[in-house]
């Protein structure tokens, strides 16, 4: 390995540590929320919704969480889990920018744009 490659690799380790931290916080938060909803459902024996139904829109999940409905809390946790990879992409853009890696700022931004486009299709399709 050349000196420049070694330097680049050391920089990469720094970026990866930041991303690792973000992933950890995101995943643990999502897991706690999911477990909270499940435990609440197990204790009360109720999901907060009629049999075989659960909230799937931002509005109904938000209202359900405020009313402390178990399955609304679980759905919020599942949504947070879905967001963790998206969050990782966002943090990667910042990390690459901090390391002055212009090319990978653009590559990673492109990935984020594609992801946002996918979400848009999911919500409206």
């Amino acid at each position, binding site marked *: *390995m050349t000196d420049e*490659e070694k330097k*680049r*690799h050391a920089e*990469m*380790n720094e*970026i*990866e*540590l930041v*991303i*690792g931290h973000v*992933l*950890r916080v*995101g*995943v643990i938060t999502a*897991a706690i929320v*999911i*477990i909270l*909803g*499940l435990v609440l*459902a*197990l204790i009360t*024996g109720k*999901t907060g919704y009629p049999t075989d139904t*659960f909230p*799937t*829109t931002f509005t109904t999940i938000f209202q359900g969480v405020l009313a402390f409905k178990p*399955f609304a809390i*679980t*759905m919020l*946790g*599942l*949504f947070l*889990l*879905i*967001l*963790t*990879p*998206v969050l*990782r*992409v966002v943090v*990667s853009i910042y990390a690459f920018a901090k390391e002055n*890696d212009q*090319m*990978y700022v653009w*590559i*990673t931004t*492109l*990935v984020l744009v*594609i*992801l946002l*486009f*996918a*979400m848009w*299709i*999911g*919500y409206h*399709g």
Partner: protein
Amino acid sequence: MINSILLLAAVGLFAGIFGAIFGIGGGMIVTPVLTIGLGLDIKYAIGASIIAVIATSSGASIAYLKDDMLNLRVAMFLEIATTVGAILGAVLTGVLPSKALFVLFGMLLIFSSWNMVRKLRASKDEEVNTKTDMLSNKLQLNSTYYDQASKKQVDYKVANVPGGFSMMFGAGLASGLLGVGSGAFKVIAMDTIMKMPLKPSSATSNLMMGVTAAASATVYFFNGSIKPEIAAPLAIGILVGATLGSRIMQHLQAKLLRKIFIPVLFLIGLQMFLKGFGVSF
């Protein structure tokens, strides 16, 4: 409800451990177990499995990041292909008959397991690619990792970027269509086509699966295919299992890892192939 939640958490734990070890998403294990084992509707199995894929990816990546096996630039660059493929796959789901897709998917996996057997016979030890490639130099994809099993720092170069990129598009397409992480395809793209060593390939594949799955997961989330009582206990079980699995993986030799991986790949392929003809086992 308590029993089914505990059972699903156990299924998740099992899927998480094996998913992380082989670099395949929990989804590849979860969907057959839920549909064939527990007789669940395929629609909800796919919804739960996409959550499983994200949980495996995020859970396993935490451990990999600490161990410096991941190639983040390779992951980011190839994610352009996987996410575009995943969107197209999600859109195509309603158009193409899923039977045909199961058959094609199964055939490719069976071919891949045969290809891995051939490779294992040709070279006893894992060869590290050291040939310089113009495109991978330009994209700064070459890297290094510390191999715990052989206690050596391994420098490697990445080959055939266009080939790997095309394979990743296919992997994303399959992910969007079937609600799987397509980890096997991703490992093949990096390990077989781009000549990356198996361990960084598995680690990078695990991280990429989460981003690919997030694209299709939003669709499943908003159309009601993600049932909280199924997906939630699975996700928790998988998170714990994936963390354990990535720990176990570092202490195995690359050759042993492959030997375990080949029959797994073959059986999943056979199962998917037969499912396309309406045969389940």
